[in-house]
């Protein structure tokens, strides 16, 4: 479940930040600012694309096709974030970031792209819009944080919008995977059967079902984690503001 990939970045920036400069150096900061600005712009392009397509067509069905390319490009580009954690210029867990980004990329390529029949489903619009709004807020949050100039509104939005966007995205994702199931079963997509030289088998249909089941334990954990983060981050700011 990657709907709003809020992550566990400890960017609780405030003027009382401790003096230990374990963050990225000047060059890394510049790179990250550029990266986050580009990503914000990219997802804005997707957002604008969705709105324009809706206005032109007059309906919200089949909007995926109008933003297919930028969606694939910018969502796949997020793989760089795993590298950022691995290299250390971003203080997040490689495993957690990897998990979030890979699940997004999985949905983009291994489900939506691969099973053409689901591309016209409304559930795709559901998760794409959830992702779009989330990512615009998230990347602008990072941009402003890096520049040490974070407007409260962005911080508030990042830690509040997920309350609706996360369930919305998860619903869209699950419905899309569910819609893909019959086609995967019929065509044996990405599946390997016995007998073969390497004595290996893989049933993509079962794999997708297991993926859907895995949302049950994982989604609540991530959701409640974000709620706890929200209490911590927004409560702290309020305390500070009353001084």
């Amino acid at each position, binding site marked *: 479940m990657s709907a709003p990939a809020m992550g566990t970045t400890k960017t609780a920036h405030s003027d009382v930040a401790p003096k230990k400069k374990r963050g990225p150096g000047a060059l890394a900061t510049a790179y990250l600012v550029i990266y986050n600005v580009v990503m914000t712009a990219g997802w804005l392009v997707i957002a604008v694309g969705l709105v324009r397509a809706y206005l032109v067509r007059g309906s919200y069905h089949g909007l995926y096709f109008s933003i297919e390319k930028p969606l694939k490009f910018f969502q796949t580009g997020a793989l760089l974030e795993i590298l950022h954690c691995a290299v250390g210029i971003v203080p997040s867990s490689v495993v957690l970031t990897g998990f979030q980004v890979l699940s997004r990329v999985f949905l983009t390529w291994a489900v939506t792209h691969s099973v053409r029949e689901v591309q016209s489903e409304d559930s795709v619009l559901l998760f794409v819009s959830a992702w779009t709004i989330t990512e615009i807020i998230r990347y602008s949050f990072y941009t402003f944080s890096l520049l040490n100039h974070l407007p409260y509104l962005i911080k508030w939005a990042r830690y509040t919008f997920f309350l609706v966007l996360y369930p919305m995205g998860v619903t869209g994702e699950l419905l899309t995977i569910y819609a893909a199931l019959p086609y995967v079963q019929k065509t044996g997509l990405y599946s390997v059967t*016995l007998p*073969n*030289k*390497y*004595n*290996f*088998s893989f049933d993509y249909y079962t794999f997708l079902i297991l993926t859907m089941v895995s949302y049950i334990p994982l989604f609540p954990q991530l959701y409640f984690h974000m709620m706890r983060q929200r209490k911590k981050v927004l409560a702290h700011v309020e305390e500070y503001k009353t001084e």
Partner: protein
Amino acid sequence: MKHYEVEILDAKTKDKLCFLDKVEPNATIGEIKSMFHKSHPQWYAARQSIRLDPKGKSLKDEDVLQHLPVGTTATFYFRDLGAQISWVTVFLTEYGGPLLLYLMFYFRVPFIYAPKYDFTTSKHWVVHLACMCHSFHYLKRLLETLFVHRFSHGTMPLRNIFKNCTYYWGFAAWMAYYINHPLYTPPTIYGEQQVRIALIIFLFCQVGNFSIHIALRNLRPPGSKTRKIPYPTKNPFTWIFLLVSCPNYTYELGSWFGFTLMTQCLLIATCSVCDITVCV
């Protein structure tokens, strides 16, 4: 002889949990743990972590009271390590499972494969060989657990047994499923020659692994928990200590490599890589 007073506080809440007076200066932490257990029967010694500092390292059972940096009234902090289970129990369970599970697949117990294959045997001789090797491997591990290994910790947290067993039993069942499958394909790349070479590699590594376990055992006198650096001995299999400090893993990897070659089962290669990644 001056007696000590010992008070034990909860590391998180700082509540006074226990007060012991007239403690001998040469009492060990282990003995203090037993005394603490008497007043709190739910916390047996193995699940107690006694430390000088609430966030510090656990003291060892062998540490002697008078040699610790404490006054005559010693304050210790206690943390509950949670339910514990002995290493031996865990090892026996996690190794016994694969041994039995594999045999269930080998004998094609009902509900695994299609009903017409129930209780049939494979027509490929390499499948029989693989079963013998796999069973030998886990029997060896079980016997080593009982007679060879000397453990530095008596126990581990209870939840580890579920984690470990899922891993061992899961992989054993999964690979056994493929190897004993009615549609199993024996090695095709180099056929019989491949199986023979694989068997030699497998046996070589089994002997190597066993030699290392014996060498490591001999480093540690019975009943002790000492740790010493291992060096090569007269046994050629131990000469690998010149290259690697934990060659039991090297030999283990070699065994699984041999097994992969023998069965030409991709899954085993993948599992071995994951296994090593996890261990490292």
